[in-house]
């Protein structure tokens, strides 16, 4: 089991990331508004840990993930990344061309849909070949050895490298995708719902594999999913997102028993648990998630919150540490958080 005290070093510090997609309309494709897919998110990821990211569809998980991998350029914000254990932090978004290319090696991604993640007309070897070649594996035989080694590390036969994607099942494909992400020896892998498209009986294979690889290679994961049970199983810390904002961040163990945010509470209670006997109290949220193009004023959750107060409709709560636990951050007027960011002890972040 990953032990929290083991990882203290911050690998990636996500600072005030915003990603707005323009909404265009009319003859001249004028921008008439913005989808605020990710709106001012600050998080950090420690080396060797798994940071879980949960939330409902459309809350901006994938967008945030893609910003981290730099598939999207954030509208605003910084991604401060520490390349070496004792090096300096550099903003990934303001690297020069060469540094930026080299940084691609460090952060990789596993995508949600294993069926579209592999090029259907390229066999596995060719799919791995180009990334390896451009990142310094110049010898073709070495590349082949490397692919064989990677396939075996995800429990697949080395000779599968000559096969085409359509010869593999979803679970096998996802394992190949994991191997591909690992081929350039990354530090950080953003896993965007890696098991959502898989059969229940296959999910466990992939989840366990990911845990094993993490232990073996000291990987850091940002693990995105909408299924809290899966996230809880995988993560050390969990960030709960709602409409482009992080509403609560706590260690996986804490979140289940000591949640503070009403949304987390509702989310937890909504997950059906495959156990009988204990009758849980279910909190049914009213209505639907509002559109991120036009989020409610004040606290974004107030339209569906069962504990809504007057202040929630006007003032948006900030994500702040709890008084009794600086590692537990909540954005809610009801939570007993520190008043002023300045009060946070310096070593807590």
């Amino acid at each position, binding site marked *: 089991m990953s032990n929290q005290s083991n990882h203290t070093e911050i690998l990636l510090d996500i600072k005030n990331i915003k990603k707005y997609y323009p909404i265009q309309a009319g003859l001249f494709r004028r921008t008439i508004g913005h989808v605020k897919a990710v709106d001012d998110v600050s998080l950090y990821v420690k080396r060797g840990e798994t940071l879980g990211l949960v939330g409902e569809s459309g809350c901006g998980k994938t967008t945030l993930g893609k910003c981290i*991998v730099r598939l999207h350029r954030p509208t605003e914000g910084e991604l401060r990344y520490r390349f070496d254990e004792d090096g300096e932090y550099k903003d990934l978004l303001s690297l020069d061309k060469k540094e930026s290319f080299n940084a*691609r090696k460090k952060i*990789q991604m596993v*995508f949600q849909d294993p069926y579209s993640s592999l090029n259907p007309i390229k066999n596995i070897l060719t799919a791995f070949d*180009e990334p390896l070649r451009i990142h310094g594996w110049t010898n073709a035989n070495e590349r082949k050895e490397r692919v064989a080694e990677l396939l075996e590390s995800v429990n697949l036969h*080395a*000779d599968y490298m*000559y096969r085409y994607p*359509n010869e593999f099942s979803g679970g096998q494909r996802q394992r190949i995708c994991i191997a591909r992400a690992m081929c*350039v020896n990354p530090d950080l892998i953003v896993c965007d719902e890696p098991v959502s498209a898989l059969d229940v009986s296959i999910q466990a294979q992939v989840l366990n594999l990911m845990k094993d690889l993490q232990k073996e290679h000291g990987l850091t994961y940002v693990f995105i999913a909408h299924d809290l049970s899966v996230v809880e199983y995988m993560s050390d810390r969990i960030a709960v997102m709602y409409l482009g904002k992080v509403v609560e961040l706590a260690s996986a163990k804490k979140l289940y028993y000591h949640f503070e945010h009403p949304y987390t509470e509702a989310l937890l209670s909504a997950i059906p648990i495959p156990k009988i006997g204990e009758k849980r109290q279910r909190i049914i949220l009213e209505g639907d998630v509002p559109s991120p193009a036009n989020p409610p004023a004040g606290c974004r959750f107030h339209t569906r919150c069962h504990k809504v107060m007057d202040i929630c409709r006007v003032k948006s709560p900030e994500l702040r540490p709890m008084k009794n636990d600086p590692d537990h951050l909540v954005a809610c007027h009801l939570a007993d958080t520190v008043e002023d960011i300045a009060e946070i002890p310096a070593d807590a972040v």
Partner: protein
Amino acid sequence: MATVLASKQKVKKSSLAKRNLQKLLNNKLAVFGLIVVTAMILACIAAPLLTPYDPMKISLSERDLEPSSNHLFGTDKLGRDVFARTLYGGRMSILIGLSGAIGGMLLGVIFGSLCGFFGGTLDAIFVKIAELVSVVPQLLLVLVLSTFLGAGVQNLIYVFMFTGWVATFRLVRGRFFSLREESFVEACRAFGIGNLSIAFKHILPNCLGPVAVQLTLNTAGFILQEAALSFIGLGVPSGVPTWGNIMNAAKEIIVITQSPWLWIPPGIAIALFVLGVNSLGDGMRDVLDPSQL
């Protein structure tokens, strides 16, 4: 490890092309098309071996002969051997159709890939051009251009290229639009693979199936158009034998009724070749459709 690799390499190297060829050979329609098309192309190429006659040689002593063992398809008004003319004419017709279609395909693929991948202003401009080319009736365009450029084999090929890229362009551009959102493209991006490499090495090969089908359709279309244009005298100069030009002779009722050997052989040649190419195209479409096993 090395031994594992070496031994397995022989066992499993199922190339996609090989499997597709297998699938193609299982498809009766495609095989029929393939046989017809190859046989006809071979016959045209091997024309000197199949007939001793020169298609251009006028022999006034042998005018208007009916088919016989000497002249398989008879001779025309000027005493030229119709069999030889059909074979040599096939060379030119197929050359025109195929090169027009290939040229159009190349243009379409290049423009389509760039527009589909990068989008933006470039894309908007090309889409407008493609619209312009396609709203003008194609035959009219061909007419105008061929009068403008003058009749001639090369000019006709240019004309076909100019009208033929649009379909391929649309197809490739559309495929690019959907493929560029696929996760495997994003995976390439995450590795820092360059844009051109992504566009041409990773996405484009996924479009080539439909492009090949379009190529066959265009080839067939252009051969028919060549025939039509030559028939009305706007295609290839009448001296050059093409299927269309040969049939040009059959403009008069009297020829149609009295000397059917003048127009039936090239007519059948056109029909058969177009049918063959189209069946090959249809067959290929089935073969390349990934949902069919």
